[in-house]
């Protein structure tokens, strides 16, 4: 899911390198990368899907420990994330005006069983991601590779002709259209080598053939996954993975609150553990009064935008005056407190998030952090409304509900009655991205899929993204804005494109389809034995590949 769990960057345009939270301590730690020890990772997930075709994993988290791709991300404290070669010798050479991309594999690459990694395995890995039986992964390449729209995978559909492997070291991709961000695409899980002989689609999720520094030792459904060293992995061929711990254990299904409390307590094995999930607000408070834990808390920079989406195609919300009234009525301060206060994020007024190149700061509805109730009432009166009754669709966990209530009570002040409808995550996703649009309000958060203004605007506000799985959840349709977006997408000059995105940002907010609430920050906790634990500016998740244990 884009919205809550993992987020993926798809562009070479990088965020600014500011990284206040990762202070001098981390840098000192990162100097040494000790080997050995057992690292424990506490996660709320109950299963880990290691099948590259089905995975939506970030390059720097779980799958990256076991599986290598053509390219990967180099994420380090204080530096912008970069796409770097992994199995390939470079990030790709393009020809044919960006429609053909060629990669060459490094020397001395082999799987855990000792057999060599070939370009045919990568081709096969990509091909199998087209099989309907193995759907569920990141599939951006499926729409870009020539012939991808018709291809049904290797089990029934033969080979995909737009991928060529002239020899065991070389692989060539032919695209339908030029695509400058292809080096990022091949960092996705589907570009992991899968030896055809070892491919059992039924068990590959638990028994992938390891190419990274670790292989799976045991997989206990629902409780734990243990990784051990892959003896055939050669550090010389790998620039991003430090492979510190001897053993890595994922404890699955851990309640985030309990996990955070364990990490605060920092006892026993938990000293060599970190939490994969955000630290909940209550534990953020707890950390403040615990100097030891405070040192072990790592908070990212302001990143993803949390916003209130107004369904612009529903009843009174069709009226722009009403929507503007909501802009004034919302209590962003309360929302910020419900999100964990100052550590939860900064008050937001724009759509493009800080750190994205070309962002312009502005505030179209200057109401202060707590809103301007009088102004809201006035606008409602202008719209001919004395009262409003709206439903707010929210996910059914205490954090989401707390945030929903913050919105609820804010709007209440202006006479807008909000009924919260809690639902399970998937139900919420289906409803807001479905075609029916049966909701008035919903709180959402968006980490740009591309750390480019494009990623902030296009998926959320282009009219083509309404329903059918799209994330235009305010169901905002404005021909003028659509035109601006198309123009910006087509623009090859970065500076010009940024100006166009900034223009679109303001233009959209004059129609008030969403209320920007805060730019969220993510906080993570680790045990005292863990070092090289940092959360970069983008993506705002810890880099598993570099974590090591004090020896």
């Amino acid at each position: 899911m884009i919205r809550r769990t993992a987020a993926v960057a798809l562009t070479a345009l990088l965020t600014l390198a500011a990284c206040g939270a990762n202070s001098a301590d981390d840098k000192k730690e990162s100097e040494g990368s000790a080997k050995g020890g057992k690292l424990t990772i506490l996660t709320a997930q109950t299963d880990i899907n290691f099948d590259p075709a089905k995975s939506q994993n970030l390059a720097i988290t779980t799958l990256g420990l076991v599986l290598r791709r053509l390219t990967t991300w180099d994420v380090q404290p204080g530096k912008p994330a970069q796409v770097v070669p992994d199995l390939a010798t470079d990030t790709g050479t393009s020809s044919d005006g960006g429609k053909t991309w060629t990669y060459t594999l490094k020397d001395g690459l082999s799987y855990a069983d000792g057999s060599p990694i070939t370009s045919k395995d990568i081709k096969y890995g990509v091909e199998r991601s087209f099989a309907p039986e193995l759907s569920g992964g990141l599939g951006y390449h499926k729409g870009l590779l020539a012939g991808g729209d018709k291809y049904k995978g290797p089990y029934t559909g033969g080979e995909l002709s737009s991928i060529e492997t002239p020899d065991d070291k070389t692989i060539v991709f032919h695209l339908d259209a030029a695509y400058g961000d292809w080096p990022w695409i091949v960092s996705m899980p589907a570009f992991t080598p899968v030896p055809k002989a070892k491919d059992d689609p039924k068990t590959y999720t638990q028994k992938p053939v390891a190419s990274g520094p670790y292989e799976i030792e045991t997989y206990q459904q629902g409780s734990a996954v243990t990784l051990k060293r892959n003896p055939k992995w050669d550090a010389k061929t790998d620039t991003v993975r430090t492979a510190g711990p001897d053993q890595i254990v994922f404890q699955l299904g851990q309640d985030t609150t309990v996990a955070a409390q364990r990490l605060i307590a920092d006892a026993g094995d938990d000293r060599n553990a970190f939490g994969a999930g955000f630290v909940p607000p209550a534990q953020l408070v707890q950390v403040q009064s615990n100097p030891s834990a405070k040192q072990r808390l790592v908070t990212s920079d302001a990143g993803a935008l949390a916003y209130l989406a107004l369904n612009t195609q529903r009843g009174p919300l069709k009226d722009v005056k009403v929507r503007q009234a909501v802009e004034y009525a919302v209590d962003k301060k309360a929302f910020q407190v419900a999100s964990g206060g100052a550590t939860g994020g900064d008050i937001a007024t724009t759509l493009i998030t800080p750190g994205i190149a070309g962002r312009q700061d502005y505030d179209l509805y200057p109401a202060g952090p707590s809103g301007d109730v009088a102004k809201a009432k006035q606008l409602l009166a202008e719209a001919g409304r004395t009262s409003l009754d709206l439903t707010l669709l929210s996910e059914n966990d205490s954090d989401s509900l707390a945030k929903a209530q913050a919105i609820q009570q804010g709007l209440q002040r202006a006479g807008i009655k909000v009924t919260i409808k809690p639902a399970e995550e998937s139900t919420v996703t289906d409803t807001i991205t479905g075609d029916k649009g049966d909701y008035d309000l919903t709180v959402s958060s968006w980490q740009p899929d591309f750390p480019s203004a494009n990623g902030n605007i296009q998926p959320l506000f282009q009219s083509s993204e309404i329903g059918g799985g799209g994330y235009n959840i305010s169901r905002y349709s404005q021909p003028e804005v659509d035109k601006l977006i198309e123009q910006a997408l087509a623009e090859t000059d970065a500076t010009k494109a940024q100006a166009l995105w900034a223009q679109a940002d303001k233009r959209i907010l004059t129609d008030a389809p969403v209320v920007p609430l805060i730019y969220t920050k993510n906080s993570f906790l680790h045990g005292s034995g863990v070092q090289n634990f940092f959360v970069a500016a983008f993506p705002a998740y810890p880099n598993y590949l570099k974590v090591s244990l004090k020896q």
Partner: protein
Amino acid sequence: MVVDIPLAPARHPLRRLLADRWAVAGGATILVLLLVAVAAPLLSSVEGHDPYTYDLSALDDSGKPLGRGGGISGDHWFGVEPMTGRDLFAIVVHGARTSLLVGVGATLIAVAIGVLVGVTAGYFGGWFDRVLSRITDVLLGFPWLVFVIALGAIAPARFPKQLLLVLVIGLFGWPGIARVVRGQTMALKQRTFVVASAALGAGTGHQLRRHYLPNLMSTIIVYATMTIPGMIGSEAALSFLGVGVPPPTPAWGRTIGEAIAWVQTDPMFLVFPGAALFLVTLAFNLFGDGLRDALDPRTAKR
């Protein structure tokens, strides 16, 4: 024992009930809680807060209540809710409404269905009884929590959630009482006065009205009293799991669920709603115990 102990003079059940100190204490607590529930808006307005308004001034920057004991002060008697600053006293007092409403409402439904099923199954017997008993047995052990969660997801947003809860908890809560009532009905069926009435030509309606229901009444009352705390507990458990009464309507279970995360930084946030829930359950249990002892014809005989 067949030892011929002379009959003790029969005392009125109410007098026996009043002689039971614990039952009286339980009954008094229930009364007080009922009053609190009814007068919740009044009580919280005396204190000067409602359970919905945020008070960010009562919190520090991180969202933790300012001051000791979770922000207990003359202004906020029970302190405030972390992250929102809403008044905990108002929440607890209004939460009593939710708990009692759902508890009593669901019990009424469960008792109505349970008595209907139990009496008819016991009265008619035969295959009718076998089918109903089987349904009862299966439902008695059914993982209904799952169904409730799912129903919460599919019910339209406009459908009042409290009513849904009352209905669902009630609909799954009847098998226990149906069993008891069925057993009693079958026992009554063997009693001579019932047989005599049938032999006199009394119809089903007359027998049920005249002989069965009056003799089942004390069982039903006792069972209903003993069921209420279970129902209140179910509502709280559902709210705890996040599928109960939707926010911001105050509910003890939900507050307890939220407070768990805060227990190390703000224990009072857990103490007040937790104590309230415990107290009301305890009170109903004590009262129910006393009522059973007072109404049970066997203890009356001894």
